């Protein structure tokens, strides 16, 4: 932001801005030079901000009516659904909002993977993003426990029990986490506290995420460094604001459809049965967005190694900027990486699928192969690919994509030609 020499017009504005440069910040945010070739995969950052704010606002409202007590939590949720004015709407937005949040974050992450947005000089943005993602999973997991249904209770039991895999101190840690000798009221109240806290931590990290983004500026589909500001960029407002707004509205239509017409399809029916420590559900499954990692956990026969594999599957992403040895960012110019990218997408979807299935027979075999491939992709394929791959020559600028290979650039080129004519 050091390149900003902004002076407010009015005297009051100048007086204020000299003491707290909020107006300079606002000016930076509106003028922020953004590559003009960003496609719709880039709109998910804005969509995610919307998701976070929606979750916080609906969450605060729910917390005014929810009672974090093992004997009353389930009933208080039903109270919200029946007697609180528009309680059903707020709760369904919050519950489906979590799923929409993860849908958007997965698209956001896979966009980064495709266009190499994690590479130098954007490693810090990427790592902050991974931390946000981890916190999101923690918040979502704890939030799912709060209605105190059967899946809440047994999901909490399974996940907290993972810590017992830690040698020597494992059992002690689990008791400490539970606040007792089983998942019970102390567990619920602390989960509620943490579920309330984490979104604000995420909010803080999102500020850092955006700050870190505004230092080097956005990556773009061509993946080359661009001059800022230049003919390759547009000011954030109004160009990107209106485009993000349009994409957000499309996203909201899908969101609204879930909330109003199939509000329970993404949840599990068992969570409408009040928690009962004496009855174990037939299948304990996490929410859909955690299934790939659940599959990795179960594909390893040893409990401790399974937990390590699951955590590594997430943490390995933090090392991605160094595991990917290719200097070329965008997969558009990396013909081999592009294919491996789509194989990875398929691999993760398969992991998600088998994660929902019982861990036996063919499903277990598929889960094991898919888990092995997941790590193979990051630990072997990516490092080697950087040295072996013959990449397509990069264009000199995004407005002059004479050497561009994708159809997007071809149409852009045609349009430019027609403008010249």
């Amino acid at each position, binding site marked *: 932001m050091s390149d900003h020499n902004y002076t407010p017009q009015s005297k009051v504005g100048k007086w204020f801005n000299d003491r707290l440069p909020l107006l300079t910040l606002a000016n930076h945010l509106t003028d922020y030079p953004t590559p*003009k070739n960003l496609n*719709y995969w880039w709109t998910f950052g804005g969509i995610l901000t919307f998701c976070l704010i929606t979750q916080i606002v609906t969450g605060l409202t729910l917390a005014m009516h929810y009672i974090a007590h093992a004997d009353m939590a389930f009933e208080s949720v039903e109270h919200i659904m029946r007697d609180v004015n528009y309680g059903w709407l707020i709760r*369904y937005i919050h519950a489906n909002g979590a799923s929409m949040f993860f849908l958007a974050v997965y698209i956001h992450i896979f966009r980064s993977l495709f266009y190499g947005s994690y590479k130098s000089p954007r490693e810090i943005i990427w790592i902050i993003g991974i931390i946000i993602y981890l916190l999101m999973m923690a918040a979502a997991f704890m939030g799912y426990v709060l209605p105190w249904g059967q899946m809440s209770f047994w999901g909490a039991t399974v996940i907290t029990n993972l810590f017992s895999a830690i040698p020597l101190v494992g059992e002690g840690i689990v008791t400490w986490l539970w606040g007792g000798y089983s998942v019970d009221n102390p567990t619920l109240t602390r989960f509620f506290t943490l579920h309330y806290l984490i979104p604000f931590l995420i909010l803080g990290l999102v500020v850092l995420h955006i700050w870190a983004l505004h230092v080097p500026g956005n990556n773009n589909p061509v993946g080359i460094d661009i001059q800022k500001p230049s003919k390759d960029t547009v000011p954030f407002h109004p160009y990107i604001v*209106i*485009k993000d707004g349009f994409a957000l509205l499309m996203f909201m239509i899908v969101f609204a459809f879930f909330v*109003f017409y199939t509000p329970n399809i993404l949840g599990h029916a068992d969570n409408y049965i009040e928690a009962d420590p004496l009855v174990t559900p*037939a299948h304990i499954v996490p929410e859909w967005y955690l299934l790939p990692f659940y599959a990795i956990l179960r594909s390893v026969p040893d409990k401790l190694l399974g937990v390590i594999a699951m955590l590594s599957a997430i943490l390995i992403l933090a090392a991605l900027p160094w595991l990917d040895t290719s200097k070329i960012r965008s997969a558009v110019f990396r013909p081999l990486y592009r294919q491996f990218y789509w194989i990875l997408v398929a691999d993760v979807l398969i992991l998600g*699928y088998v994660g929902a299935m019982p861990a036996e027979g063919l499903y277990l075999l598929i889960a094991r192969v898919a888990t092995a491939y997941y790590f193979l992709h990051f630990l072997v394929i990516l490092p080697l690919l950087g040295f072996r791959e013959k990449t397509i020559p990069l264009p000199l600028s995004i407005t002059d994509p004479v050497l561009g290979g994708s159809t997007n650039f071809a149409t852009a080129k045609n349009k430019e030609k027609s403008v010249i004519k």
Partner: protein
Amino acid sequence: MKVFCKKFTIIFIVLGVFNISNAAEKVDYLKTDWSFKGLFGKFDRGALQRGYQVYTEVCSSCHSMKYLSYRNLAEKGGPEFTEAQAKVIAASFEVKDGPNADGEMFTRPGKLSDKFVMPYDNVKAAQAANGGAYPPDMSVLVKARGGGVDYIYSLLQGYDDPPEGISLDEGVYYNKYMYGNKIKMASPLSDGIVEYSDGTIATVEQMSKDVTTFLMWTAEPHLEARHKMGFKAIVYLIILTVLVYFSMKKIWSRIETEV
């Protein structure tokens, strides 16, 4: 833009297929037309009132309905009994209240603000009276079962003689749609077990449909309001999206590039 839409659609189809295949044990439930499904789905008032009758006369002797109050019966979007009718219904139940000024518990006729009277004092009493099985509370039962309304509707009509090779213990019954096929509830409905005041013939099929509709309402009392608001919200969003799309085209036309 087009490429984006295409990819987005593909992802959604893939997710959809996964979702469908995720639905565990595939059972072909009995199908019927539910008036509350679809964009404009509403409850059939008659079915809700008849369903309430089936619930009260049959189910409620074992199954509680603890999250409902008698006032709900007169609320909009429900069976919509008149307030006078709901008061009469409430007053027909004995409610335990107290303690009074002398420290004694007493019973009095129900009021609109009372919760539905429970058939048993506690879970243990319910189990003791039902061969060890606890008849689940019915308030959110439809949402608590994988197949939802189709499952409940089928289960009520799914009683049959056990196929050869399956032996049943005393007090256990065979049901085609029950998970594991063994159920501790005897077939609750038989033709004519209730007498509908509106003249509808009380076949097992009819009663199953009515009571399931009623249970859908008890689980989702604001379903009609939700559908109504959902339609408005989505139409509003679509119009706004179109307007924003054209604004975007206009703004981006200042520079020569593809949006």
